[in-house]
């Protein structure tokens, strides 16, 4: 349920970033991939691949593209992220940064390859792919920073320090 809500929220954000009054560079960002990255903590690689598949299909539907290549790319990206995160036991900010960069890069590469093999003309090429990787990576960095800040705020050490200060 949580995952579904997160996917919906990310999808809404992804749509919102394409709004005309928002800085145009942000439209390249794919927050939905961050949900896929986040799911790598809870699911095994196949589960993450399913999440990626759902996210990719949703992206395809919302983007009014051919439905399918995005799903395939999302599934591949999710599997790759899950495998890498497990293999290198990533945690903390590195998990989010590497995960988001890898997810975006993998997703874009697989999507491009899929579309090209289908004989269709991709709606973006390397510049768009690069922008997607960069902006999704930046979003990952933001999530990592936020997570760190929240953890620091909720940490028992901070609570102890506050208690000691009151004494």
């Amino acid at each position, binding site marked *: 349920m949580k995952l579904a809500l997160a996917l919906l929220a990310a999808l809404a954000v992804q749509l*919102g970033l394409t709004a005309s009054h928002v800085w145009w560079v942000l439209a390249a960002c794919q927050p939905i991939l961050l949900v896929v990255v986040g799911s790598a903590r809870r699911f095994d690689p*196949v589960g993450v691949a399913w999440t990626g598949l759902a996210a990719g299909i949703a992206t395809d539907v919302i983007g009014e593209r051919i439905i399918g290549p995005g799903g*395939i790319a999302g599934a591949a990206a999710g599997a790759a992220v899950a495998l890498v995160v497990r293999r290198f036991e990533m945690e903390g900010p590195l998990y989010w940064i590497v995960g988001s960069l890898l997810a975006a890069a993998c997703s874009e590469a697989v999507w491009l390859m899929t579309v090209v093999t289908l004989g269709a003309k991709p709606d973006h090429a390397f510049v768009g792919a690069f922008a997607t990787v960069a902006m999704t990576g930046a979003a990952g960095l933001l999530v990592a920073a936020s997570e760190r800040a929240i953890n620091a705020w909720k940490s028992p050490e901070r609570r102890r320090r506050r208690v000691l200060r009151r004494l």
Partner: protein
Amino acid sequence: MIRVRLRPDITIILVCAGLYVGSAAQVRTPAGTTALSLAATTLATPALTVANAAGEAWEDFRAGRRNLEATLAELGHLREESAALRRTNQLLAAEVAELRQGSALLAAYPSLADHAVLARVVARDVLRTHTLRLDRGSADGVRPDSAVLAEAGLLGRVDRVLEHSSRVQLLSHPAAAAAATVPGVGSEGLLVGGDSPHITGLPPYTKIAPDAHVLSTGSEGIYPPGMLFGTALEARTEGLFTVVPVQLAANPTDVTVVLVLAPITKAAP
């Protein structure tokens, strides 16, 4: 009943393959408005509306801040400009005042104008050293012991000359001295400077009318004869001489332009 249990990893591969086939079919099918695309557009509208409202608010905020910064910068710029204009105005006003004073000076002494140098006072110390600094020097024809004249009367003499500047020893200088006379009084006295300039050397009990003009005689070889030093105050006899306090005519604190006269050429003995 046959139950088919698919492994998730194989299932996802199969789904992906199906998607690929479906995609290929879509590529080969002419695109048109489908119920799915319509649904997607409808679902996207609220998110886009919210995002546009947020973006618009942000743009407004940014524009407002930029305008504030621009306004503050403009205000600072205008303040600087105003200060510069005020300074220029002051300088121009001073320039005009000097020109007026110089013009009045030349008009007051038309006969001296040809042999005199008009100089601007660039510095003054009328309390400590009793000197003025002029912007003309030897390069302009200023020589030591040249008499310095203001519109109201004599100021002093040039005591130091550089190439492009000179120093004036005022009559109020304690070491200043000049031969002076009062019209109607036959004898000549010595005007000495100091805090209270006075004429000394006059015969005792000499009668001096109050406010009588004190004029130069030129005997000391510096000041041309007949020039005004000031006005006489109440005379008194001290010992062998009559002492006449003098109110100097030219006020060095107000003078901005002076006339430096050519030194008097001493006749050969």
